[in-house]
């Protein structure tokens, strides 16, 4: 019941315990607690940031999609336009080519006609002269004959 030497024994024990706690126990565990607190705070901040970033990227993705759609429509339209253009050009080219071919053919026809006419004229002349010669064989000399024929030919050529 009374105070005795135990008092000092207990004081020494107490001092040892406090020293031990301060040296080996308290700082270590408090550090673990504080570290975890910091870690959790960081994690929460990161989660918040991640959330925000997700929102942003979703927004961006939407925007990109919208842009892509618009661009696709543009591309299709342009392709359409170009196709029409090409078709138009091809049509034009074909038409000029056809025209040119027609004109060449026409020229050929004219040439052929001319050549045929010339041949016909010559033949006709010969035939006329032959006919006339046969008719005139009896009465007119050869010299007058030749002159008549060439006059005739010239006349035919002029009349052409």
């Amino acid at each position: 019941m009374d105070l005795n030497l135990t008092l000092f024994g207990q004081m020494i024990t107490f001092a040892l315990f406090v020293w031990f706690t301060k040296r080996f126990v308290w700082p270590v565990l408090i550090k673990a607690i504080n570290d975890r607190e910091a870690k959790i705070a960081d994690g929460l901040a990161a989660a918040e940031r991640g959330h925000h970033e997700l929102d942003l990227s979703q927004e961006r993705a939407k925007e990109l999609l919208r842009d892509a759609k618009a661009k696709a429509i543009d591309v299709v339209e342009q392709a359409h336009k170009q196709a029409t253009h090409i078709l138009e050009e091809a049509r034009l080219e074909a038409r000029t080519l056809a025209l040119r071919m027609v004109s060449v053919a026409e020229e050929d026809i004219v040439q052929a006609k001319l050549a045929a006419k010339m041949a016909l004229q010559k033949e006709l002349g010969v035939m006329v002269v032959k006919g006339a010669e046969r008719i005139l064989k009896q009465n007119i000399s050869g010299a007058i004959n030749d002159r008549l024929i060439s006059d005739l030919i010239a006349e035919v050529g002029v009349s052409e």
Partner: protein
Amino acid sequence: MSNETLDSSQYVHHHLTNLPWTHAFLQKKLGDFGVLNLDTLIMSFILGSAILLLFYFLARRATSGVPSKLQNFVEILFEFIQKQVKETFQGSNPLIAPLALTIFVWILLMNLMDLIPVDLFSILLGKVGVPYWRMVPTTDLNVTFAMSLSVFILILYYSVKEKGALGFAKELLMHPFPYIWMAPINLPLSIIHELAKPVSLALRLFGNLFSGEVIFILIALFPIWWLQWVLGLPWAIFHILIIFIQAFIFTILTIVYLSLAHESHE
């Protein structure tokens, strides 16, 4: 009844007697003061080192990642103490929190011994030849005064360290009446004020636990067996409250006193 050879008063006396050890030299020099209460010293040391070693091994394996259940529990205790210190103690002193933690867990464990049936260990140890054994160290004035006097020494140390010898002297002389001519009245008042701190700390804890223990002993004396439950159980449940409250009060008052020692009253 534990021991048929004792009558009631002997039984009570037996349960309130510490296991003494002394040396002829100490006895001669110090008289009754030269005695060591072995049961008190051993019990308090075992309890204190058990909990501190547990803390130590937990601290070595402590992780800032996901804590084990035990670490989690201990951390709750640590944060509870840290919160009390932060709320009460204004300055920054790395000693206060570990001191408060040590006081709290140590007193709590020593108080908890009160819930062990009063006869259990005295009978068991009696069988191996130990004549006296008190399980609850906080029912020994030496324990409570050892802690409160240690705290008192810290109070004086930090008062002088933080305020300077002159500042502390001025505080003693100028309070509660702020006139120097009142110093002859202030000084005794201040001294009583300061001395009341360790005395009240020690006696409050001792008184609560000692009276609790006495009541447990008296309940154990009832001859009707079922009265042990009818009286013992409610008292034990009520005592759990006292055990925690007393440990808490001692801790909080220690923090408050040391906080006062750090701040000037100007």
